[in-house]
């Protein structure tokens, strides 16, 4: 049967179990939207208010549903508005298929109205991209797009479809097999390397596990826990590795890196064996590379061969997905105990507790600190909500103080640090898990980057809990200006709108708290609300986030004040 390219796209999306699309229409994608009109009951479409929101919402959906996130945008400005979200997904290995409309094939290269070369623009920020100019390419290309987005290390794929290819008809036959001869599937963990890794771990006095996003992506939660427990190994997490192991687990040592814990940073440079699982030794994790864990033997498990030896040299590198590598490793690991090594973590945690944590959590003069909000929220939800944090001080405070009990319950923009991520990502997260409490924690600056998605929330009638931690500053930049630029506060203070009134304008109920004594009740009202709810919390203006490994310093130079 002959179908239009637009209809073939719908059929192909259904073949890939797509049930939700985030998008925004326009001229060059209208035939696709016209086809979508007939598929409304099978393919739900969420109309965002800016294409960046569509990409982040698709990211949130992908990360919590385990499916590939799908978004639509028109050519030119619609497509370029997706770019930030695509770059974000590339950095954080999130599987997306982004469909962009394009001018008619016969106009390509002529600077036609709303023609932007999206293949050129997105080549460095996609796992793969392709331009379709004929309807008979649609089914096979979409099949490939989904396969590539979700297989191996996940990532975003962009498919640009010229308008004629959306309108013209072709025979629809969905390919049963996808042939990409050059596609490199990650291998099985190499036996010999697994043995070498096991030997290092079994002989280690001070072994140290680092869990990255790869643990979450490959759902290696049990394997991580089993390995840690069997050999009695402390586990630290990267920013995106948080919630790979419950925070309450006795071997969970919390976050490491720039705003990680004192213990995890200092002891990185004392461990004798580091087992890095599904992480990529980002500079925010390693600090000054030349002084990073030089004493340690490094076992690096990663699905992406190009991550191995990219930043640090591994003594043993297992190029496989985290779950299969850990499964291979566990039977070869002997039971062990590392009591005195573990007590080192506790000793340093105690120092951090005295120097930082107590100060941040103890109420003073009825002002509110970010840490108090997150800590209270964590207690009240028993750490069982899905938390979506934006970018800045509030993000680091959330990472430090929320005690994640559920696996894969923390979404944030890690590699790219994209302000504006949280609100749209929370929409995707909530739509992936409608029964789960989804809480977005957002700075006053970040909120204004994608604030228009409040309208999307209202239109969809979904219940997202939004906490604005308002310090009236671009806080993280102010912190750097305070610490490293002689307190020269250059363009970081914000005259903000009345956020509660803004929310109200979007038909979302909200309230504002300014004093500590009102905080608890306000959080309770937020959590009790059946609908979306915005809580603006006026927090102390000039609190700095510690511990901190200053950029370019060694991890052991982590500062407590």
């Amino acid at each position, binding site marked *: 049967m002959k179908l239009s390219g637009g209809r073939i796209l719908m059929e192909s999306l259904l073949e890939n179990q797509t049930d939700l699309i985030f998008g925004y229409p326009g001229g060059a994608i209208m035939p696709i939207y016209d086809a979508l009109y007939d598929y409304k009951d099978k393919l739900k479409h969420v109309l965002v208010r800016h294409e960046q929101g569509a990409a982040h919402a698709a990211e949130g959906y992908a990360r919590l549903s385990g499916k590939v996130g799908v978004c639509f945008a028109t050519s030119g400005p619609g497509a370029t508005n997706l770019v930030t979200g695509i770059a974000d997904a590339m950095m954080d290995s999130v599987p997306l298929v982004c469909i962009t409309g394009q001018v008619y094939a016969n106009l390509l290269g002529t600077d036609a109205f709303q023609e932007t070369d999206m*293949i*050129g623009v997105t*080549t*460095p920020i996609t*796992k*793969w991209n392709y331009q379709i100019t004929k309807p008979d390419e649609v089914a096979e290309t979409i099949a490939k797009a989904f396969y*590539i987005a979700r297989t191996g290390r996940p990532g975003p794929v962009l498919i640009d479809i010229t308008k004629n290819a959306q309108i013209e008809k072709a025979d629809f036959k969905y390919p049963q097999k996808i042939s*990409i*001869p*050059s*596609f*490199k599937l990650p291998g099985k963990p190499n036996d010999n390397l697994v043995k070498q890794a096991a030997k290092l771990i079994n002989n280690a006095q001070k072994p140290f596990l680092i869990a990255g996003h790869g643990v979450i992506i490959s759902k290696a939660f049990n394997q991580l826990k089993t390995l840690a427990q069997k050999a009695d190994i402390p586990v630290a997490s990267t920013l995106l590795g948080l919630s790979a192991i419950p925070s309450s687990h006795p071997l969970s040592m919390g976050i490491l890196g720039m705003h990680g814990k004192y213990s995890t940073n200092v002891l990185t440079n004392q461990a004798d064996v580091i087992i890095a699982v599904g992480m990529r030794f980002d500079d925010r994790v390693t600090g000054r590379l030349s002084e990073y864990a030089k004493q340690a033997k490094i076992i690096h498990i990663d699905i*992406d*061969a*190009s991550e*191995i*030896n*990219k930043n640090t040299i591994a003594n043993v590198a297992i190029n496989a997905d985290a779950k299969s590598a850990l499964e291979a490793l566990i039977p070869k690991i002997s039971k062990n105990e590392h009591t005195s090594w573990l007590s080192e973590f506790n000793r340093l945690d105690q120092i951090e507790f005295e120097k930082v944590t107590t100060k941040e959590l103890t109420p003073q003069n009825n002002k509110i600190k970010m840490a108090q909000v997150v800590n209270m929220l964590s207690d009240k939800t028993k750490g069982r909500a899905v938390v979506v944090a934006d970018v800045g001080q509030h993000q680091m405070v959330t990472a430090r103080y929320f005690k994640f009990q559920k696996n894969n319950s923390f979404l944030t923009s890690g590699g790219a640090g994209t302000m504006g991520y949280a609100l749209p990502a929370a929409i995707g997260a909530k739509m992936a898990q409608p029964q789960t409490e989804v809480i977005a924690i957002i700075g006053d600056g970040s909120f204004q980057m994608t604030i228009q998605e409040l309208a999307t929330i209202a239109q969809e009638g979904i219940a997202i809990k939004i906490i604005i931690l308002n310090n009236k500053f671009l806080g993280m930049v102010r912190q750097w200006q305070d610490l490293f630029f002689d307190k020269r506060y250059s363009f970081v203070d914000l005259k903000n709108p009345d956020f509660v009134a803004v929310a109200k304008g979007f038909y979302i109920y909200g309230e504002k708290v300014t004093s500590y004594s009102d905080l608890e009740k306000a959080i309770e009202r937020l959590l009790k609300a059946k609908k979306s709810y915005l809580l603006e919390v006026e927090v102390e203006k000039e609190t700095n986030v510690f511990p901190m490994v200053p950029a370019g310093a060694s991890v052991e130079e982590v500062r407590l004040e």
Partner: protein
Amino acid sequence: MNITITIYSENKPGVLYRIANLFLRRKVNIESLTVSEIKSEDRSRFTIVVKEDLSLVAKIAKQLERIIEVSSVEIHTDNELIFKDAALIKISKNPKVVKKLDSIISLLKASIAYQNDKYIIIEKLGTEEDIDLLVSTLEPFVKETVKSGRIALPKNGQ
């Protein structure tokens, strides 16, 4: 150090763009580039020469392998390879050079590709140094020289 990167890929449009993009990101200059089709397999071979640290090139090679259309990447130092460039050298048909031409050509292993009453075009396959030597021997009669990028094969199997 000269490093030769050999990239095998699907024979599809846009692969060169993706490859070049990676070199751009790493700010590595491409000294020479040859692309050819492997007809029997519908694949392409890119032979790229860069002057860089082996360790950096090894990282780039792994990143090149992330390109979906790329099936494999090899890197070699010069001593592991037989490598050649091709050159065409156009000289004026001056009696002074015509007289010596036969002996130059046979000594420096070149040959005449074409001639008319004004010009002679000489072809030469060899290393860059071989070609430079031939060109300098033929100066000042050389009108124009064109060189190809490197083609290379490893001496041993991989």
